[in-house]
């Protein structure tokens, strides 16, 4: 074998929104070996959770990831509620599923955009993100926030979805469905995209089992797993939907799974809204007085795969141990299989194909005028502005 060059992807690279480091050992353009290093972003969330009460932990785990910010509270709620063994009200189940599926749609749209960007197809990037905006606005109307919705609590949800919001949501869903048709057409029928994605980063079903990969990554290799169906939670056993599978295991199959899953999500939300109409004016929350000693295990299907939470309680008001496993943890090691043997170009899109979870949050505290250097707004005023926008959205002034 000839001399090998190291092509670094990371720790800071346009491909990665979050610091991660992939060393590609290349012979010419062919990737011969790959070493990945993570841990640049360690924030000690599990330890922080042990210092918070069971109620507060929701808002900590929500901030693990800005994109799938409801999947962690979802899994945590399942874990905590399994300790006393409470059954949440039907209305809360529907609302939880609606939030979870809306998040899946916006996350998949975000991935389609990013994948386009990594391929140099910036038009798809911009379009997908534009079509994602109404979903985020809908989140703002329902929960008050575009991200980190603070919707879940022990024993139910914190906010109800009223009839008016439901009709608004239905309208947005019809719109999104139309736009999804357009994106599916643009991606699935483009010969250049076929040439670029087919047969790239192939993972066989054996590889999936070997690495324990989950979610769309696994389903694109015909591995039929989905927590929503295998261990139903919230309202997923009360509605009709099917698990999307695709053959091939290449990047194209992963794109296919994600695009088609959006249609299923739309169908689930529509059925949940029907269910909400039937269970008119029911409770959205039951009171859980205390969490008895014991261990709780909960998982949920995040847009990227199974999120797993383990919570141990000693009867006090905060967890004594909280273990979290995000889907990317099992999906990232598959890179060694999907990238080695391909070219550097293929490695870029193959790493993006599992949609590694980038947990980035940026905070703006003050805005200055560029020319005069005068302070215009501080954090409190920005929050006020944001709340005013939410109010306007709810009153349909925007």
């Amino acid at each position: 074998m000839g001399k090998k060059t190291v092509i670094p992807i990371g720790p800071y690279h346009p491909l990665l929104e979050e610091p991660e480091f992939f060393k590609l050992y290349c012979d010419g353009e062919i990737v011969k070996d790959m070493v990945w290093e993570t841990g640049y972003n360690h924030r000690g969330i599990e330890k922080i959770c042990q210092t918070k009460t069971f109620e507060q932990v929701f808002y900590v785990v929500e901030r693990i990831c800005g994109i799938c910010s409801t999947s962690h509270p979802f899994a945590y709620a399942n874990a905590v509620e399994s300790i006393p063994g409470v059954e949440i009200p039907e209305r809360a189940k529907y609302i939880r599923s609606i939030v979870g599926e809306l998040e899946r749609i916006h996350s998949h749209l975000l991935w389609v955009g990013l994948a386009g960007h990594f391929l140099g197809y910036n038009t798809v990037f911009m379009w997908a993100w534009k079509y994602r905006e109404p979903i985020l606005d809908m989140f703002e109307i329902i929960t008050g926030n575009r991200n980190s919705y603070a919707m879940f609590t022990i024993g139910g949800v914190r906010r109800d979805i009223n009839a008016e919001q439901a009709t608004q949501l239905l309208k947005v869903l019809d719109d999104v469905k139309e736009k999804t048709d357009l994106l599916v057409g643009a991606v699935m029928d483009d010969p250049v995209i076929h040439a670029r994605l087919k047969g790239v980063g192939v993972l066989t079903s054996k590889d999936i089992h070997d690495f324990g990969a989950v979610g769309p990554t696994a389903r694109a290799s015909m591995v039929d797993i989905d927590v929503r169906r295998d261990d139903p939670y919230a309202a997923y056993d009360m509605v009709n939907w099917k698990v999307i599978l695709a053959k091939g295991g290449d990047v194209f199959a992963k794109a296919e799974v994600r695009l088609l899953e959006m249609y299923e999500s739309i169908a689930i939300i529509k059925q949940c809204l029907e269910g909400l109409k039937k269970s008119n004016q029911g409770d959205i929350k039951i009171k859980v007085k205390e969490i008895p000693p014991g261990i709780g295990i909960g998982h949920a299907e995040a847009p990227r795969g199974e999120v797993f939470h383990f919570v141990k309680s000693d009867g006090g008001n905060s967890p004594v141990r909280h273990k979290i496993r995000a889907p990317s943890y099992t999906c990232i090691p598959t890179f060694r299989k999907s990238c080695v043997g391909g070219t550097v170009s293929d490695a870029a899109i193959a790493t993006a194909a599992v949609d590694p979870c980038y947990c980035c949050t940026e905070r703006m505290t003050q805005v200055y005028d560029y020319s005069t250097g005068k302070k215009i707004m501080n954090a409190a005023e920005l929050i006020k502005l944001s709340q005013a926008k939410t109010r306007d959205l709810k009153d349909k002034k925007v």
Partner: protein
Amino acid sequence: MGKEIFYFLIFPGLLFSSFIGGFLSWFDRKITARVQFRKGPPLLQPFYDFVKLLSKDTILPKNGSKFTFLVAPIFAVFGAVIAAVFVLLPTFGIQTGFVGDIIVIIYVLNIPSLTYMIGALASGNPLAAVGASREMKLILSYEVPFLLVLISIIIKSGMSIKLSEIIAFQTANGAFIGSISGVIGFIVTLMCIQAKLGLIPFDMAEGEGEICDGITIEFSGTTYALVNLAKYIMLFVLPALVVGLFFAGMNFEGINILWSVLKVVLVVLLLTLIRNTNPRVRIDQAMRFFWIWMNLLAISAIIFAIIGL
């Protein structure tokens, strides 16, 4: 002598072509932005970029050949300006040029790409090396169909190897774009120009998402400003060459001035639309595309030209 210096430095050389190239670059960016539902930059943005880059630090690579690295962008601008003069003088109808100038143009059009490669390799950056190797492969793939198309044009214009004569032939007998071989040649040339300018789908030498702008990764400050300047000039020169080869050149008398401008803008618009409706292809796919499909098309153009279509 004074006239030559004027040609090279003012019109149609450095100053003129970089201004027009800057505006065309703005046009490209504005159209891209509108296609992507964005607002787009103001008219003078390319010039702001250039001036801003001039005021920035120029960071030299630690492990590279500093002299070669610094000289490469200057030669890129030189090459682009020489190409501008040789292409634009006959295209504008100012001067007739010399016999065989089309062959010289083929050579000088490659100078910017070659100097980017030399600069990238001199920087000692592995990503730049990957970018340079891709650029080399790309040059090897697009040059052959480009030459074949030129042969078909030379055949059509009655064995003339002088750009001004080719344009004069078209003015007399109608533009080549009106014939079958002309249309095929135009398509092939458009693809070659897309690759020459490093636009998507053939921007793998830069490949932002893969190798972080590969070939230009180490350029900063003044050197990067010069690289951008060479790119602006090439964005004007290559469409102008297409106009000369297929659309009977430019004419600046009366209403014709509008047509001349429209021709260049149309070619740039086509390039922009191609780059906004395609993902980047892999280098091996690009090579196959040029070596097989584009060569076949170019050869068919030659055959059509020989039988007079």
